């Protein structure tokens, strides 16, 4: 995945050196961290063999809750905490519904997708929610840079490392992968299926909330349509990153690179000056090429390993 990302960066950077300016690359990571963070958490869900369709509106609704609290005089830091907890609560609601109705997550979130959207519109009165004091410490902290490194980029990368450790080094992570690999075997082994699924949905919800409140901190507002386009990009980042749709395994760091590949393609289109009418096609075509490069590298590695065994 890193090879495909490097190739893309080199191609765009060769065309226009401004693209590979450190500040530009760091900004690229920061500004794509909102959907990217959700992709990191979604790896757990895909590793379970499930998909949450409501992530974009969970992001939006949590951000609206946080921003609305701020407009009602709640301290922005507390408002942000409220947003994260609210996101986790929406995830819990998804989890409880999934368990109670004995339905796959995709079916339940097909409904909660619209419920979260609708309730968010009702709460925001169908207009952008703009907190009153966007110069306060919460906002300046989110927008801050350490040297040239934006806080958002740090949060994104740190979250990727933490979640990768959770997935590959903790009992919870092993359980997630075991359930995704073979739910029946996992059940017979005494792994609590329902509780694990609920916990994963709470995790995804909390990260949606975190991403939402960080977006309020970065932009100083939340729009009625923010997050509406996240779903496909999130799933694409996870899959490009190497997590199979069938479940059983996953890579959070891979999803980080998957998100950055999507981000690089979107920026590359601008740097190449590709006309708007062609950009959608080019985006799709480059994703296919990037995945093909990754598959090619994996295939060669596998062949080399097989030769060594022979």
């Amino acid at each position, binding site marked *: *995945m890193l090879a495909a990302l490097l190739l893309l960066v080199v191609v765009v950077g060769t065309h226009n050196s401004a*693209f590979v300016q450190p500040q530009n690359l760091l900004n690229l990571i920061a500004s794509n961290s909102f959907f990217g963070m959700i992709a990191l958490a979604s790896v757990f869900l895909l590793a379970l063999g499930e998909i949450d369709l409501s992530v974009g509106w969970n992001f939006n609704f949590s951000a609206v809750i946080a921003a609305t609290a701020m407009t009602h005089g709640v301290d922005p830091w507390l408002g942000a905490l409220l947003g994260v907890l609210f996101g986790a609560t929406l995830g819990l609601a998804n989890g409880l519904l999934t368990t109670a109705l004995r339905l796959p997550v995709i079916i339940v979130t097909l409904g909660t997708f619209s419920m979260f959207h609708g309730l968010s519109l009702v709460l925001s009165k169908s207009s952008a929610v703009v907190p009153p004091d966007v110069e306060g410490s919460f906002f300046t902290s989110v*927008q801050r840079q350490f040297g040239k490194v934006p806080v958002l980029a740090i949060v994104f990368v740190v979250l990727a490392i933490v979640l990768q450790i959770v997935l590959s080094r903790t009992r919870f992570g092993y359980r997630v992968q075991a359930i995704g690999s073979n739910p029946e075997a996992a059940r017979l082994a005494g792994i609590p299926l329902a509780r694990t699924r609920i916990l994963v949905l709470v995790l995804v919800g909390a990260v949606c909330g975190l991403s939402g409140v960080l977006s309020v901190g970065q932009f100083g507002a939340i729009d*009625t349509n923010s997050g509406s386009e996240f779903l496909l990009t999130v799933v694409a980042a996870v899959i490009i990153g190497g997590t199979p749709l069938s479940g059983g395994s996953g890579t959070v760091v891979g999803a980080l*690179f998957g998100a950055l590949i999507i981000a690089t393609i979107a920026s590359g289109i*601008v740097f190449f000056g590709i006309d708007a009418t062609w950009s959608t096609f080019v985006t799709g075509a480059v994703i296919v090429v990037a995945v093909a490069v990754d598959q090619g590298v994996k295939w060669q590695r596998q062949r080399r390993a097989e030769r060594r065994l022979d």
Partner: protein
Amino acid sequence: MRIARHIIMIAGLVALVGLGAGASTAEGTPQAQTQKKLTIGFVTHFVGNPFIKQVAQAARDAGKDLGVTVKITGTPGFDPAAQLKIVQDLFASGADGVSTSITGDSMATGLNALIGQGKPIVQFNIYSSRIKGPYVGERSVADWAILGRMVRQKMGGRSAKGKVIIGTCAPGFPALVDRIKGVKRGLGAGLVVKGAFDVTGDPTKNYTAWQQLIAANQDAKALIGVCAQDLENLGKLNKLNGNKFITAGGDPTLGNLAALANGSGLISIGQTGYVQGYLPIKMIVDAIRSGKKLPNGGFIASGAEVITKSGAVEDHGLPRISLATIKKFQTDAAAQKSYYRRLFVGKGKFVNWRTHVEPIANAGR
């Protein structure tokens, strides 16, 4: 081992960021900027939408007339975060100025940061009053009040009675909320106004949504959609219902013009997309070449087009045109340019555009 591999991958990412550390960009002086060929970015929402295509064509025309390169890009839907990133990327790739539609208030902080660095930015089509740059677009409320008044007139004027259904493709979207406000203002008191109902942005779903609204409101007298795809579908449905409804909508798309021509549609309000594409490019180029900064906000009305079966009454003193001529504009870029170009050359209204800047509040009045 796996953790170690992941750490190596993260290190690779850090190295990637360091890749360009040695590279440098030369900041042009104002004098150099006036001499080199300027590059202006033009960022739209709804790429491929017929109205947006007309606006983008006008931006291209402006680029040719002014001797600058215009890079047109955007997003397929409404995605403020993606649009903001495109604007940032355009400046990072060397653009001298950018005109963008504002699909959300959340673009304001990022755009204001760029404006603070001296980057010229002009808003078009959809705006945010939080942005410290000028806006070229419609008077959403006032222009759509014209439509409301004409529908009421057709319903019987002062003595009009009955039910009016309003549909929107994006509930809560500020520009459309303003349009609905305008329609309701124009319709006035004494009518039963229902909606706005969500009729969706997808043309196929839009047809079905209107079909269902009609089925549920057979007693309605008028049906009004505030998005570009509404009138075309309303016209088709009205025809199936024996043209018993008064239908109205916005923008001069081919489908809307067909509905007006065959009598299944009453009126379409246009927002003079050509001005929304051409003028922002001219404003940015003028500002860079003259060294005089863009206004710190403000609004220039692109003008309303009142399009009916008998043709279009245009703003800015432009001559009246027939439906056939407007239709020709959709496919003949040269014909469109020759009609609107008079606004930007010689003694044209927008040659000295600074005299037409109004307070931004006027855009939503």
